């Protein structure tokens, strides 16, 4: 072929940024910060708590309830650290600093809706009503942590990344086929959005018009890998365009903004308008899990800048400034939250340990002959385990 030497036609969209080396980690934070300036990011409160979009403010009671839920979540996270250090809770992934992203979104649901959380979304699950005791039980790996209350459609935390997304589409579609107005909400991380399941789910939801709300929590990190190394894209909400569905980018540290955009998405889904992708822009100020040491892959300076954006402080300042909450009322609230938590902890402490043969329960509705035989093997080996313990 003869080379064509004529001038190039302009690219229809997304012109190439010439980049001769693979992205290095040094650039990660800078690129990420630049993306924060994105003017399309929906925001209701500025980091200092001042109102930037009066028109988006939810009702006062809603704002107070969002604050209460964020405080409950933060309390769980803070007490969790202590309990972990005391050996009273297993390794868990903290989410402190991401409360607006989890609470503001989940608060837009009712108990008839589905919630598909990842391991990091305790804040979302608690908001929709998952009992604290069960959540503690999960991180203690007690079977009680997996058996969800009958009146809730909150699924147990998803461990294999991204697998919850197609499942949420199925639950949403099933609601629609059964004639309800219920929706399904699924969470995923910036890292998780690289998995194929993310793509397949968004496309299915669009094609089948499933009433799904997809929350993509962009917290800047997937364990040690910064978002910038995860993808060349700087605005993950634009992925929605590729499926013909709405995409929204929201300040993930602003609970009023996350609540607002999620409510819109939920309403659209309920009324037959189909799915929405919401990217909540936030930050994992904490380590990946309580056992992780982030100094192996990032500097303290990375996280420091996010302290000024703390979602709990932001809403607190607004509520105090707006005269919606007094410090005295707040103190009461915190006391209530602490009492609720300690009661839940006591309940979790009371859950019995599983017995050996329980590992073979609940494989099928009716155990197969093979399972019956294996159960007998276990019982023979671990005769009367409860008596042993008592002895």
């Amino acid at each position: 072929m003869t080379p064509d030497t004529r001038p190039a036609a302009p690219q229809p969209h997304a012109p190439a940024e010439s980049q001769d080396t693979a992205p290095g980690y040094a650039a990660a934070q800078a690129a990420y910060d630049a993306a924060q300036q994105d003017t399309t990011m929906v925001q209701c409160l500025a980091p200092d708590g001042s109102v930037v979009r009066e028109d988006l403010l939810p009702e006062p009671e809603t704002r107070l309830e969002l604050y209460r839920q964020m405080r409950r979540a933060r309390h769980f996270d803070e007490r969790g650290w202590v309990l972990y250090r005391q050996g009273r809770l297993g390794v868990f992934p903290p989410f402190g600093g991401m409360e607006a992203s989890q609470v503001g979104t989940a608060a837009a649901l009712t108990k008839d809706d589905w919630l598909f959380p990842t391991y990091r979304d305790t804040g979302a699950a608690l908001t929709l009503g998952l009992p604290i005791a069960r959540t503690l039980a999960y991180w203690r790996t007690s079977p009680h942590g997996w058996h969800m209350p009958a009146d809730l459609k909150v699924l147990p935390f998803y461990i294999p990344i991204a697998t919850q997304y197609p499942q949420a589409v199925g639950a949403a579609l099933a609601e629609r086929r059964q004639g309800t107005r219920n929706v399904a909400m699924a969470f995923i991380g910036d890292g998780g959005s690289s998995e194929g399941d993310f793509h397949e789910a968004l496309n299915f939801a669009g094609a089948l018009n499933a009433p799904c709300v997809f929350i993509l929590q962009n917290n800047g990190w997937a364990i040690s890998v910064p978002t910038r190394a995860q993808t060349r894209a700087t605005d993950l909400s634009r992925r929605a365009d590729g499926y013909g569905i709405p995409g929204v980018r929201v300040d993930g540290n602003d609970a009023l903004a996350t609540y607002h955009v999620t409510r819109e998405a939920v309403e659209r889904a309920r009324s037959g308008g189909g799915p929405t992708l919401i990217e909540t822009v936030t930050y994992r100020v904490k380590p990946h899990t309580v056992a992780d040491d982030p100094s192996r892959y990032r500097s303290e300076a990375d996280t420091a800048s996010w302290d000024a954006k703390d979602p709990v402080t932001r809403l607190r300042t607004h509520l105090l400034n707006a005269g919606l909450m007094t410090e005295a009322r707040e103190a009461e609230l915190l006391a209530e939250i602490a009492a609720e938590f300690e009661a839940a902890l006591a309940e979790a402490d009371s859950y019995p340990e599983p017995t050996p043969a329980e590992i073979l329960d609940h494989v099928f509705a009716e155990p197969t002959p093979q399972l019956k035989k294996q159960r007998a093997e276990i019982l023979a080996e671990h005769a009367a385990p409860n008596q042993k313990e008592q002895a």
Partner: protein
Amino acid sequence: MTATATPTGHTGATKTMTMVAAINDALDIALAADDAVHIFGEDVGVMGGVFRATDGLQARYGEERVFDTPLAEAAIVGMGIGMSLAGLKPVAEIQFAGFLYPALDQILSHLGRYRHRTRSRYHLPMVIRAPYGGGVHTPEQHADSPEAILAHTPGVKVVIPSTPADAKGLLLSAINDPDPVFFFEAIKLYRSMKEDVPTGDYRVPIGKARMVTEGDDVTVICYGGMVEVAQKAAAAAAQAGIGVEVIDLRTLVPMDTDTIITSVAKTGRAVIVTEAPRTAGFHSEIAAVIAEEAIEHLRAPIVRVTGFDAPYPPFTAVEDVYRPNPLRVAKAIRQVMDY
């Protein structure tokens, strides 16, 4: 087309059908009986499936009950899991068993674990149908037999019928089962065989093997597309005065160990036939169970007649070298007799 007899024990009305027609009939009955049943997959709606197993069902039950999905197997299974969670009974078709692979994460990570993880708060009454196996010169990578992978996955059942009536009866049992069931359909058998199939809601229980022929000398254990192969070998052996007991497993999980052990206790010889690759196939599980539970009865090695440790050959001229044929089974029967 060979015609076989009416299924043993059934006394009601019957109709002569191919396996694919029997499957279509079962799906039709399930859709009519229960609004929760939903059928979906690639090309199952308007076109009625590449093998026509869902032919006419969308026209009869509408685009909501029988529908085409985008081309993505992980999402087909993942969506089905979500539908099950929310109370439906999804019946998904995967176009060929070899295209289940993109969905294995959903299957291994969730389909088999959901009841266990949630201590029965949730269970997944989902059926996944897929044509499997070779013998009909399908294109490259369209003849895989991945049943061992599913059988090794706790929490899912695996059913593989070998006749039209069994296909119908087992499929209706699968759809009515409270737990996930894989239903593999031998492509080779879709239209090659007709038999009288009971009309109406006919069920064959999951977990019970079928005694195809009785005999005192050798037990041949097989399922799906290998049953007719074993039957031919048994017929040839009968000519030579060797009594072969052919056992059609019907379901791999749960496996009907009792029927196998009883037969081997009688014959003292076992030949196992599948078309999957040799190493670590489901045939190996059958052999292991016999070696664990019936060793004292064995008068000869347990012989496996299987595919080989190579991919199913994309070269159709030599495809039949890979897939066990009656001669190879007959040779194995002689081998255990002569031992």
